[in-house]
Each structure stands twice: as structure tokens, then as C-alpha cells.
């Protein structure tokens, strides 16, 4: 099969769907039909990618579109195929979810066409084989997702999010344009094949690498280019948030891998260090910011920042290993990165689905308004719980496996010779562990405040379970999370061709090991078996239940909560989202967030209410973005009076320029 068919099918179907979507919304179930069709198209695209991956060939095609002279080049190699599977799998889930969820959309015509185009854009990025097609699809993806972010434009918050998003996306694209400018050279050899053949000087290659890191990092949400991500992801409809957070960031990761590992050739030693440190910082800050959020979707979005950090740590390790010729270790690190990208696409989609269901059921995503949803939305709660466990990197689910692989890769790194790495890697390991622990806290907070406890608002009391399609999508995602956690070997083998393409050597074959054990190098170095752990835990826990209930007691008595003898029936006395975060805020926040608590207590005897206020400052926003936007506006303000000059002044400009040029002529030429 030719990749042109693959591309043609995807492009044709999604464009067709986008075209019929607007008239289709006139019908009662029009949007459901459309989402179902989108799921089918994504499914076929995934199958096609799987077929290409299993056959182990890379398909190429040159279409007579695109840039004159270069053409639209497409290639579906193992790396593309793996990411195509990640993208389309999440797209299937999101579409199924939206079959149900999309019905409640107040303005489906602002979502549907762009949803199809967004999926198309992401798919095209993955199979682009020349710089033009790549950037065209890349920016198209940004544009279509922008339309989705602002689909609920009545709220100013969403508009602002959309603005920041698209400006940052364009900034990233500009960096990529520069980067590809170096890669393609003056003559404009934009085809990836030609780029691979070009021999860049180390300096040029490093500049290109940095630019591409900025370009793809801004899309992926690497600190400090992440500021757009939380508001944008929170603003979009939930199935789109799931795709943006779960998948679009992976497309960015793909872009980075494609350039850094494939196009640029052998890496310089410090590339890995830089990526590693950035990844570690991103993971830490992402988790910390996530913990400070009271908005469920923003919390999830910041958690995406964290996970992207983990992925980049893996990629940085892989680069460092590769630069030192340790291909086997590089393979482990790269596998960890891809695996984590895959895992994150699953559980982040799942969690956003859950958040969407909650938002629809209660009309809010403010954790302070939720509570006790586990009673009203039991199925959603189970799915959300599984997602929470998975994303907190807890065994035996999938998040732990990729984190574990990353740590295993870190443990191979003392062999590296570079001094920078010797300091950077242990530090990154600590940051990684810190962020994993913080992620645990984040999701105890999200699930504990949102789903447990007592309902904090009327809306939460009135909540109801979501529809079947949404549940099906969440269920499927949850199952996949469990599956990837207990049989990781299968997935690692699946990623092997892509890893081989990145690092020159895949991880050892895992399929022959008993009980689906995961052994990255040698069984004596370290191994992991999620299946057995799950079985053991279930066995012991269930055994305990059986034994106790059988032989001792199974009686239950319901009573009011004890609460150490101070029960208070008002739900307001519960721990809130921000009070949950308070200890951690006090530990880390004072330094990193400049968090300060302000408490005013009325003097004894007064009945005035006490007030409490938390002030947090985003230093990155203040030190990096505000100066930029401020100086742009300052320049604009300073130039503004030029609009109001008299004709004479304008003539003076002309006159001055003329005299200046004549003087130049007189003196120099």
C-alpha cells in the first residue's frame, strides 16, 4: 500500500466530514453521526498505520502538491506509524466520547468542522516528509485547534486563551521555520531525504537543534514556553482538550524526535543535557502548578506539562546516550519516552473525558463546587480513579512502567563521560521523583475533592451519571491503561521499530519472557512485572476480604461521621482544594511561586468574618512574558503619534530620507 492512499484517505475523509458537518448539525443526532464517522476514519487510519508498522517497511510517496520543486512528500516509517497509532487511538476514544458528549454542545457548528480538520492536521504532520508539508500541517493543526479553543468565545477567558495560544504557536512555528532554514540551506533542499544528506557544521547543527527545541517545545508545553497550554486546553470542549493535551503535545514530541534524532544526525554532547534539565524543570513546575489549580481542567492541563517534562527527560537521556555511543541505553531511554507519551495520551484523554462529564453534570469545573460525585456518577468515578492512579505513576498501572523505564535509563548513565551530565542526571532523577510524588498529591486532590467527601454545591448534589458513549470511551481508555500497565512488554515491542529508527538499536525483544515481564537489559539489573503485581494485590486483598467476611465479621453499621467528636454537617467545613494544597504550597510555593497567605482575623469579641487570601505569582509569566508584551505595547505606543503628524512633517520624512540617501551616495559611492 502506498502512503499516498493513507494520506489521501485521511485527508479526503476528514475534509468531507468537515464539509458535511455544518449541514449535518441541523439534524437531531447529526453531531453524533459525525463523531461516529470520525471515529471510524481514525480507526482505519490507525489500522493502516499498524499494518505499516507490522510489515516493517517505510512507505514513501511524492505528490504533485505542496511546495513547487519539492512536492508534497509523505513517508510513513516506523516512527510515524507509532505516533500515528497514538494519535488515532486517542482520536477514536475522543470521537466515541463525543458521540455522547457532543450532543450537549450548544454550538456544534463551531466545533465539528474544526474537529475534523484538527484530526487531519495532526495526521498530516506525522507523515510529512518535507519541511514545507511538515510546517504546513503543523500550523494548520494549530489553527484548527485555535478555532476549537475559541469555540465558546462568549467568555473572555477563552478568548484570551485562544489569543495567547495562537501567538505562541506562531512563535513556535517561526522558530521551526528558522530551524528548517538552517537544515534546508540556502538552496532550499526541503525534502527530508535531502536534509539527512546535508552535512551541517556542528555549530549550525546546534543552532538548528535549539530552534527546533524551541519550536516543538512551545507546542509541547516545555517550560518556559508552556504558559499558553493550561488556559487553552481548559478552554476547549472536553473531548478537544483531551486531544490537545493527550495527543497534540505528542505530535510536538514527534516533531522533536524527527528532527533531533532523525534529521540532524549524531547529536552533540550538550543537547541531551539541555533537554534533560528542561524536561526535569518542566516536570517539577508542571506538577507544582497543577497542584495549585482549583479548576479541574486547568489542573489536568498543568499535569500535561508535567508529563511532557517526563517525556523530554527520556528523550534527553536518549540523546545523551546516543552522543556517547551507548545505543542500548539510548534505546531504553527512547522507549521510556515513547511509552510515556503513549501512556499519557491514554490517561490524559481519560481524565479529560471525566472532567468533561463532571462539567456537563454539574455545570462547573471548579473543584470548590464539587464533591461526593462518586455517589452520583459511580462509573465516571471509577474511570477517573483509574486514570488518577495511572497518571500518578503508581504500580501496577501504565504510568509507573514508563516512569520506571526512565529511572532504569538514568541508572545506566554513570557510564557517560560528560561532566555536565554527571550533575544533570542525578538532579533530573530527583526532579522526576519529586514531580511523580507531587503528581500523586495532585490527583489525590483532584479525585478526593472532586469525587469524594460531601457535595459542596447544589449542582454537585444534582449531578447525574453521564451518557453511555462517554462511559464507553472512558471505560476503553481505562482498560487500555490497565493493559499497558500489566503487559508492558507487548507495547515495548510495538515501539521497538520506532526506537530502532531513533537510536539505531531497539530494546531487547520482550515477547519471549514469561509472564509478560519487562526486562530492559538484564534480569539481574532490574525487571518489572505489572501483571503479577496486580494479581498479587488483588489476590491478597480479596483473600483478606474473603477470610475476614467468612470467619470473623461482615457486619456494617452506618452512623454519622465521627470526626473526632466534632462533626459538623456543613460541607464547607471540609478541606477545600486550596487548603489541600496548602502544606505543599508552604514547602515549595514560597520559593517557586512566591505564594503568600494573607489572613485577617477580627479581634476577639468582634463578629466580623475572618478573611483568607492566597497570592501566587507566576514568575515565568512576570519575568518573561510581561516584559515582551509590555515592550511591544510600549513600542506601539511610542510609534503611535506618527499617525498624527502634519503633512509637512511627513514631507520632512521624505525629504530627510532623500537627503540622507544622496549624502550616502556622495560619500560612499
Amino acid at each position, binding site marked *: 500500500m502506498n502512503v499516498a492512499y493513507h494520506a489521501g484517505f485521511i485527508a479526503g475523509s476528514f475534509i468531507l466530514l468537515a464539509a458535511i458537518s455544518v449541514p449535518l448539525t441541523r439534524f437531531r443526532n447529526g453531531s453524533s453521526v459525525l463523531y461516529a464517522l470520525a471515529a471510524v476514519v481514525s480507526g482505519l487510519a490507525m489500522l493502516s498505520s499498524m499494518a505499516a508498522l507490522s510489515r516493517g517497511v517505510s512507505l514513501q510517496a511524492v505528490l504533485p502538491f505542496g*511546495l*513547487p520543486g519539492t512536492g508534497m512528500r509523505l513517508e510513513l516509517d516506523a516512527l510515524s506509524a507509532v505516533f500515528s497509532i497514538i494519535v488515532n487511538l486517542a482520536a477514536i476514544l475522543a470521537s466515541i466520547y463525543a458521540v455522547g458528549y457532543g450532543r450537549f454542545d450548544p454550538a456544534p457548528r463551531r466545533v465539528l468542522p474544526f474537529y475534523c480538520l484538527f484530526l487531519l492536521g495532526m495526521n498530516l504532520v506525522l507523515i510529512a516528509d518535507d519541511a514545507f508539508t511538515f510546517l504546513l500541517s503543523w500550523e494548520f493543526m494549530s489553527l484548527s485547534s485555535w478555532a476549537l479553543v475559541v469555540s465558546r468565545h462568549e467568555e473572555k477567558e477563552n478568548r484570551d486563551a485562544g489569543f495567547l495560544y495562537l501567538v505562541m504557536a506562531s512563535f513556535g512555528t517561526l522558530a521551526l521555520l528558522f530551524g528548517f532554514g538552517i537544515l534546508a540551506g540556502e538552496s532550499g533542499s526541503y525534502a527530508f531525504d535531502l536534509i539527512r544528506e546535508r552535512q551541517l557544521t556542528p555549530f549550525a547543527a546546534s543552532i538548528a537543534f535549539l530552534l527546533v527545541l524551541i519550536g516543538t517545545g512551545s507546542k509541547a508545553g516545555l517550560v518556559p514556553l508552556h504558559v499558553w497550554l493550561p488556559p487553552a486546553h481548559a478552554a476547549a470542549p472536553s473531548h478537544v482538550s483531551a486531544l490537545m493535551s493527550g495527543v497534540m503535545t505528542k505530535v510536538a514530541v514527534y516533531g522533536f524526535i524527527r528532527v533531533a534524532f532523525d534529521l540532524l544526525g549524531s547529536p552533540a554532547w550538550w543537547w541531551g543535557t539541555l533537554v534533560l534539565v528542561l524536561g526535569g524543570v518542566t516536570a517539577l513546575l508542571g506538577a507544582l502548578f497543577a497542584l495549585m489549580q482549583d479548576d479541574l481542567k486547568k489542573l489536568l492541563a498543568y499535569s500535561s506539562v508535567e508529563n511532557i517534562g517526563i517525556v523530554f527527560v527520556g528523550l534527553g537521556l536518549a540523546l545523551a546516550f546516543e552522543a556517547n555511543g551507548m545505543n542500548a541505553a539510548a534505546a531504553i531511554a527512547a522507549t521510556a519516552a515513547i511509552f510515556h507519551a503513549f501512556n499519557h495520551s491514554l490517561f490524559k484523554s481519560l481524565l479529560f473525558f471525566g472532567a468533561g462529564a463532571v462539567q456537563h453534570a454539574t455545570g462547573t469545573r471548579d473543584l470548590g463546587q464539587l464533591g461526593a460525585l462518586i455517589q452520583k456518577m459511580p462509573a465516571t468515578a471509577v474511570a477517573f480513579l483509574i486514570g488518577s492512579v495511572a497518571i500518578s505513576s503508581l504500580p501496577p498501572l501504565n504510568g509507573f512502567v514508563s516512569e520506571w523505564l526512565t529511572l532504569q535509563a538514568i541508572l545506566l548513565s554513570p557510564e557517560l563521560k560528560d561532566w555536565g551530565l554527571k550533575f544533570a542526571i542525578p538532579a533530573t532523577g530527583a526532579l522526576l521523583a519529586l514531580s511523580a510524588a507531587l503528581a500523586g498529591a495532585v490527583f489525590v486532590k483532584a479525585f478526593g475533592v472532586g469525587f469524594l467527601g460531601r457535595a459542596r454545591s447544589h449542582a454537585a448534589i444534582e449531578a447525574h451519571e453521564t451518557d453511555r458513549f462517554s462511559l464507553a470511551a472512558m471505560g476503553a481508555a481505562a482498560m487500555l491503561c490497565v493493559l499497558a500497565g500489566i503487559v508492558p512488554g507487548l507495547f515495548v515491542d510495538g515501539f521497538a521499530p520506532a526506537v530502532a529508527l531513533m537510536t539505531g538499536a531497539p530494546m531487547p525483544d520482550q515477547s519471549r519472557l514469561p509472564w509478560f515481564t519487562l526486562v530492559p537489559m538484564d534480569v539481574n539489573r532490574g525487571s518489572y512485572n505489572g501483571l503479577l503485581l496486580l494479581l498479587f494485590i488483588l489476590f491478597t486483598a480479596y483473600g483478606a476480604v474473603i477470610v475476614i467476611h467468612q470467619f470473623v465479621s461482615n457486619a456494617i453499621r452506618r452512623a454519622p461521621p465521627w470526626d473526632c467528636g466534632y462533626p459538623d454537617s456543613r460541607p464547607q467545613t471540609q478541606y477545600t482544594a486550596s487548603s489541600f494544597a496548602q502544606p505543599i504550597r508552604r514547602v515549595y510555593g514560597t520559593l517557586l511561586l512566591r505564594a503568600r497567605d494573607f489572613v485577617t482575623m477580627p479581634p476577639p469579641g468582634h463578629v466580623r468574618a475572618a478573611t483568607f487570601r492566597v497570592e501566587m505569582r507566576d514568575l515565568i509569566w512576570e519575568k518573561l512574558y510581561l516584559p515582551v508584551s509590555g515592550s511591544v505595547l510600549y513600542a506601539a505606543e511610542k510609534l503611535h503619534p506618527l499617525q498624527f503628524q502634519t503633512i509637512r512633517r511627513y514631507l520632512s520624512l521624505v525629504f530627510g530620507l532623500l537627503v540622507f540617501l544622496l549624502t550616502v551616495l556622495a560619500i560612499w559611492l
Partner: protein
Amino acid sequence: MRASLLLYATMLMPLAAAALLAALPAYRLSSLLNVFAALMTFAASCALLFERPAAGVYFLVDDLNAVFIVLTTFIGFTTSIFSASYIAHELETGKLTPLYLRFYHAMYQLLMFAMNLALLANNIGLMWVAVELATLTTVMMVGIYRTHESLEAAWKYFILGSVGIGLALFGTILVYLAAQPAVGEGLPAMTWTVLIANAAKFDAPLLNIAFVFLLLGYGTKAGLAPLHAWLPDAHSEGPTPISAVLSGLLLNVAIYALLRFKLLMAGNGEAFTPGPLMITLGLLSLLFAAFMLYPRRDIKRLFAYSSIEHIGIIAFAFGIGGAVANFAGLLHMTMHSLTKSAIFFTVGHIVQAKGTQRISGISGLASSHPMLAFAFALCVFAIAGLPPFGIFTSEFMLVTSTFAKNPWLAGLLGLGLIAGFGALLLKLQAMLFGEASKGSKEPTATLIPIFIHLAIVLMAGLYLPPPVVAWFQSVARMLG
């Protein structure tokens, strides 16, 4: 013979139509006639592509101007369609009287004539006359509403334009003087084909001085900063179809003239290279306009500044030179013309629908006029260089090739692009979103021309037909 007939048709048809329209009192008929004449001119110019007359003493059709003549007549045609439905509304609201409408239509065709003449002229003097004529007709039209603002804009345009004309004339005379010893007196020393062929023999210092004057003269017409001052006001105060033509066509004509003279400079080995000068002015225009976009409060003036920005990019591209950048420059000119005129069409609709040109008075378009909002958003994204539109292609080529050659210049270019994009997006969102402002009249005018332009721009972003590519490439080679 047929070919030269077509050539004359391209120019005389608008002239004849202008005379007829000046005499015709029935305005409905005259707007139809306007459309018809524009269509016929377009047809004739298309035919010119296939039957190209040999270069004469006065007229010339070659690769370079063939692009522009077709583009000009095409946009002239689509604008006339837009104008037909737009101007009727102006009459209803009493902004124009039938008498002025007659004048307007005549002037419109006269402008078409002038631009075609400027593009087809094989004579630097003739070209100069034509550009002057085009300027004067647009001055008339800018002032047609006779409000304080429009009169002021027209006056400003007129004065600055006249000075520009004067400077261009001096440059033209100097070119003649430089050529005269080499090719003899009289017409040959003003004929493009002769000039280009003998450029090497000309006196270089004289050419240098000439180019400075030409750059300033025609640069004023093109709206390069700091010679741009007339442009924003003229765009914002005149009737919208005229803004479309000004931005889409007249600026191109000026750039075309500059390109011709650049060719001449390139032909002479000793004359200075105009590249750096054009790059400097281009970057200046780009950066200046990009920042000026932020405080804009008038929608038409906003896009006028955007035109300055793009003219800057075009000048930059041609200044960089080389196969890739020249190609990008040509593509950018074409795409900018199509897109910017489409934008002004949409802006015309929006202003009619919302009854104001103030950006703050326009909000919630996406709710009140979804189709219009959609077209508007597409147009703005196209002009901002987002894919899959043609400007993305040209900016892609320009930015990548420049960065490989000269990263600092590309960095400045990128700064201008991103700053301009931010401003446009800010304003776009302000107008599209939020609560719909009052006054949701349905615009009467047709959206078809907008979508025709967008379709072409979209197609160019994805697929440039091989003949067009070959054509652009040969021109790019010609430009060096």
C-alpha cells in the same frame, strides 16, 4: 496582429468604458456596465497570455508584467462585482449622490486604464505618466465622500503623491540621461527593452542617483515606510472598493516599476546593488507597520497598515534576491493582492453590517453574521501567513532561505511577522467574538468575490500549477 489588438483592447476598453460611464446617468446600468467592462478587460488580458505581441516601442508584454496585468484585471473585475453591490448601499444611505456615482464609475475605469497602461508600457516616461494618472484618479475617489476626514486624506495623499511623482520623474530623466549616450537620443533611451539590453554601457553614478529618486518616488506610491504616510488615511477614508484596489493593485504597480528599475541596476555592473536599500526599507516598513497595528481603532486603517507591512515583506524579498527569495516575493505580491482585496471586501460588508468602522463598535461577528465572520477570519489568517493559504508558502520560502543566508535579517523579519500577527489576531478576536454589538443589518453585497479570492489563495497554498511555477521561476531568474 491579433495579439496587438488584444493589447490595445486591454487598455482601450477601460478608457472607452470610462468615457461611456461618465456620460451615463443610470447608475444601476452603469454599475453593470462597469462589471462588464472589467470582465472584458480581464478576458482580453487572459488572452494576452496566449498570444503575446512582440515588444513595440511603447508597449511590451513579457513574463514579468504578464503576471501583474492578469492579476490587475482580475482583481479589477472582482472588485467591480463587489463595488456594484456595495455602492448601491452607499446610495441608499445617502453617502453618495447619483452624480457622484457616475463620477465614481468613470474614475474606476480610468484607474483600470491607468494601471494597465503602467504595466504594459515599454517606456519609462509612459509608465510614469500612467502612474501619475492612477494616483490622481485614486485621489479623486478617496475624496469622494467629501467629509472632513476624506478630504483631508485625499489632500494628504495628493500632496505626498505629487512630491513622489516629482521625484520619480527626476529619476526617470536621469535614467534617460544615463542611457542617451549609449543608445542615442529619443525614444530608444526610454524604452525598457533597449535599456535593459544596454544597461552595462550606462554611466553608473548617474544610474545610482537615478535609482535613489526612483526608489523614493515609486516607493511613495508603494507605501514603503517612511514614505507611507498617505496610505492609511487614503485607505480608511475612501470607498471600500477603492481601498481594495489601492492595496491590491496600485501598490503592486509601484513595486512593479521598482522591479523594472532594479533589473536595470542589476544589468549594470558598476552601479550599486539596490538589494540592501530595499531590505532596509522593507524591514523598516514591516517592523513599523507591525507595531502600528496595535493601537489601531479603525478597521480599514488597520488593514492599510497591514498592507504597508506586506509591501515591506515584498521589498525585503526582492532585496534579498536569489531564486528562492524572488520567487517568494512574486508569490507574495500575488497572494497579498488577492487576499488584501478580499479583506477589504469583507471589511466593506462588516462596516455596512455594523454601521461603523470603529473596531470597538464591531464585536460578536461570529454570533451575528457567522458566514461573514468565517470569511473574515479566513482572510485575516490568510494575510497573516497561516496555512494552508498562499502567503504561508511565500513566507515559508522567504524566512527559511533568508535564515540560511543571513540569520539576523531573518530574525528581524520574524520579529515583524510575529508582532504583526499578534496585533491582527488581537483585533480579529475583538471583532469576531464576544457579545454581538447592535446593528445587525444583513449586508446586501455579495460574498462571492471574497470566496473566489480565498479559493485561489487556498489553492496556491497547496498547489501551484506547473505553468505558474515555471512562469514565476523564469521571472525570478530574470530578477536575479
